[in-house]
């Protein structure tokens, strides 16, 4: 039963993916400038531009171009990046895991702090714990990531010198692990290369903390609000009247009911974190997808921008799918078809 619902939900995602493909296609065609001119290079004359136009298929009618584009996409040919000279798909495959590893770790860290903080604040509203939560959350969200990032670097690298230099995913003394998933932590653990694992973890600490501080606020706020609602509902009173232990009431009854809006927020935070970590990636010279996209945009690197937009869109579709599935796991009232 449940498996069928999941498959049904997966099928619902297909039109969205098709829409995304159409929009990226139109977007790149609608942008000002002639791609053929860029691809041909600065020194090209009229004839060679025309030649590039023909090889790129740009002289054909739009529907034909679209079919060509889709066929290439399916075959895994997302075009070549001008600035790196590499296939876009290969670039993305190398850089996306770097961004994902950073974002996921940051969110994990953020949840580990924000959810207990929110629960603590909700159990005694108006107390010093509640105020502490509010101060931390406000501070976290009002400091821009590039500032917190540089501050952390200054304190922990320059003054205390307890972390390695904030340049990239691995210090030069370590060797990159064999790429299995592209996540250095996971690859290191899988291959049993604990040396690299530790090295990658050390590099991750500062950027992940920077992002965690920034994403703390919405999660903690939402946890507090939905916990307050859950704690004042009738079934909590029933549980209290039945004499259940405080821990069971708080964790088993209230928190699970409060989790739904938190998961929604988490999905939104993940989306904007993945986009917003451009700044963090720049500060820590992190070879992620955000800095790649900014460089590509500045250089008018069409194929790369197109690939980035498509990859992000697909990622968000997948993310929403996962959130919907998590909903259904938490709340039996939610059917996939509603």
């Amino acid at each position: 039963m449940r498996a069928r619902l999941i498959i049904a939900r997966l099928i619902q995602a297909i039109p969205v993916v098709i829409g995304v493909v159409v929009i990226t296609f139109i977007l790149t065609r609608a942008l000002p400038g002639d791609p053929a001119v860029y691809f041909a290079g600065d020194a090209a004359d009229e004839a060679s531009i025309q030649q590039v136009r023909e090889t790129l298929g740009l002289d054909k009618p739009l529907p034909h171009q679209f079919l060509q584009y889709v066929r290439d996409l399916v075959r895994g040919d997302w075009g070549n990046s001008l600035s790196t000279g590499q296939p876009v798909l290969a670039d993305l495959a190398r850089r996306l895991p770097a961004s994902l590893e950073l974002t996921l770790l940051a969110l994990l860290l953020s949840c580990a702090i924000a959810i207990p903080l929110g629960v603590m604040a909700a159990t005694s509203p108006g107390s010093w714990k509640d105020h502490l939560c509010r101060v931390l959350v406000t501070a976290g969200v009002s400091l821009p990531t590039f500032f917190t990032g540089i501050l952390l670097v200054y304190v922990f690298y320059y003054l205390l010198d307890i972390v390695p230099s904030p340049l990239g995913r691995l210090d030069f003394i370590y060797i990159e692990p064999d790429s299995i998933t592209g996540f250095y932590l996971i690859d290191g653990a899988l291959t049993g290369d604990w040396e690299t694992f530790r090295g990658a973890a050390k590099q991750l600490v500062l950027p992940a903390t920077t992002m965690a501080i920034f994403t703390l606020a919405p999660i903690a706020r939402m946890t507090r609000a939905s916990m307050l609602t859950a704690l004042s509902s009738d079934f909590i009173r029933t549980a209290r009247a039945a004499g259940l232990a405080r821990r069971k009431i708080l964790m088993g009854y209230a928190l699970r009911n409060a989790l739904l809006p938190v998961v929604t927020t988490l999905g939104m935070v993940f989306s904007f974190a993945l986009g917003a970590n451009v700044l963090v990636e720049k500060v820590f010279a992190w070879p992620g997808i955000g800095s790649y996209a900014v460089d590509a945009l500045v250089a008018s690197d069409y194929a790369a921008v197109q690939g980035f937009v498509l990859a992000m869109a697909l990622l968000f579709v997948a993310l929403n799918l996962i959130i919907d599935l998590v909903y259904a796991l938490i709340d039996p009232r939610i059917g996939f078809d509603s």
Partner: protein
Amino acid sequence: MLKIQNLRVQFQTRNGPVDAVRGIDLMLGRGETLGIVGESGSGKSVTAFSILQILDQGGRIVSGELNYSGVDLSNASERDLNDIRGREISMIFQNPRAALNPIRKVGHQIEDVLRHHAQATVQDARAKAIAALKEVQIKDAEARYHAYPFELSGGMCQRVVIALALACKPQLLIADEPTTGLDVTTQKTVMDLIQALAHERQMGVILITHDLGLAGQYCDRLVVMKDGAVVESGAPETLGRSATHAYTQRLVAATPHPGKTLHELVLGGTETPVPDQGDVLLSAQNVTKTYVGKSGPVHALKGVSFDLRQGGCLGLVGESGSGKSTVSSIIARLQDPTDGAILFEGASLLDTSAKKFARDPRRPQVQMVFQDATDSLNPRHSAAQSIAEPLRHLGNLTNIQRRDRVHELAEQVGLPSPLLTRLPHQLSEGQKARVGIARALAVSPKLLILDEPTAALDVSIQAIVLNLLATLRHQLNLTYLFVSHDLAVIQMLCDSVAVMRQGQIEEMGETSQVLNAPETAYTRSLIDAAPVPIM
């Protein structure tokens, strides 16, 4: 078994402390059933919560002694209290669906309680939970064990709540409005179940209710509360016959029961003449409504026909899901029927679709008074604005004319004009009900559809509102379509009644005829399920 002495409970609010309970004394013996009766705000629920020490945040027991079998509850530690709660003293609540954890299987919720009080182990918890479900007469208990609350009906949820409360065989059961929101027939089965279990286990029961009739039927002794204090106590029969306190007398008078007339509800009330009936004003002919549901079509109405004469009052009575609200919203032209005809003064109302009916010239003539006076008023509009709202859209009056009309309406419904500038939250329930009625009357309708207008009101206010409706009907020569689940109320106000069941009219006729000599078994069961009056 339970002895409460001089209990005082205070709530901290923004406007300073408020006394919710002002020094009450209560006693309850083993196997005895005590009824605490009072209207909203009388402190009866707060008293119950104090016994279990589960007051909401801000609530505090200022003084008093709560003695349960020798244990002082007000000074017991949280640990001791958790042993007593659920095992010695249990509680069931109103709104059973909300009282259960919405995302946990009901069987697991019962297990939680059993396991916490060491009444079951991992191995036998499941069997014991199913046994507890069986004991409250849930059919197919093994399957229900896996159900979530949203999959069960209201009555079934209340059974689960009772099973949860009684799983650990407590000595004292506190039932806080256990049947509010349930249909009369379900109310009867639930109350009979509680009574039978209490008798079987020699369990003490405290029944908290606003319904004097219900309390009188099931309790050995009654306590009447008002404004946080006990005003009178005694056996139901004595209270019903010879109440000494003025408030009890008023409460007894205001409780509707078959055979009572409208003016008897209010002490010193006078009879209102019933308007003469004219031609047929509204005629519903074979109205059907079918919704497209997830698992096939849902037939909400399967052919409903009735005539309503000018100046008449037809009561639509039925349990939840019988289709009575669907009928009223179709006639109010808020939605379209699937099939059938509705004639108003001989012309079809269905010529204009529900969506466009707001611009129909007949819109002012058919108006509606809604069930929840609070929810149906815009919280940011003053009473005057709310009443003037339909005039703004349907009448063409100048500002001054409109203001005069609002004052005139306020006077008609007995709303003092200084209250007109107040917002809904600054008005009492009864005053909000008056605003709702004045708003419906603003455009001088011929037909007024009243959808359970008194269901959310305390009995004493209900009595006043019902009398007001009768007076208005006479003064303005109005025709009423009165939707209610309460036969006793219909009996007093309506001259004819239609009993609805599963989208059809089961029985229709003169009110006295239907109530005194019902032709169908279903009508009979509805009449029988209503609590027997104590007076």
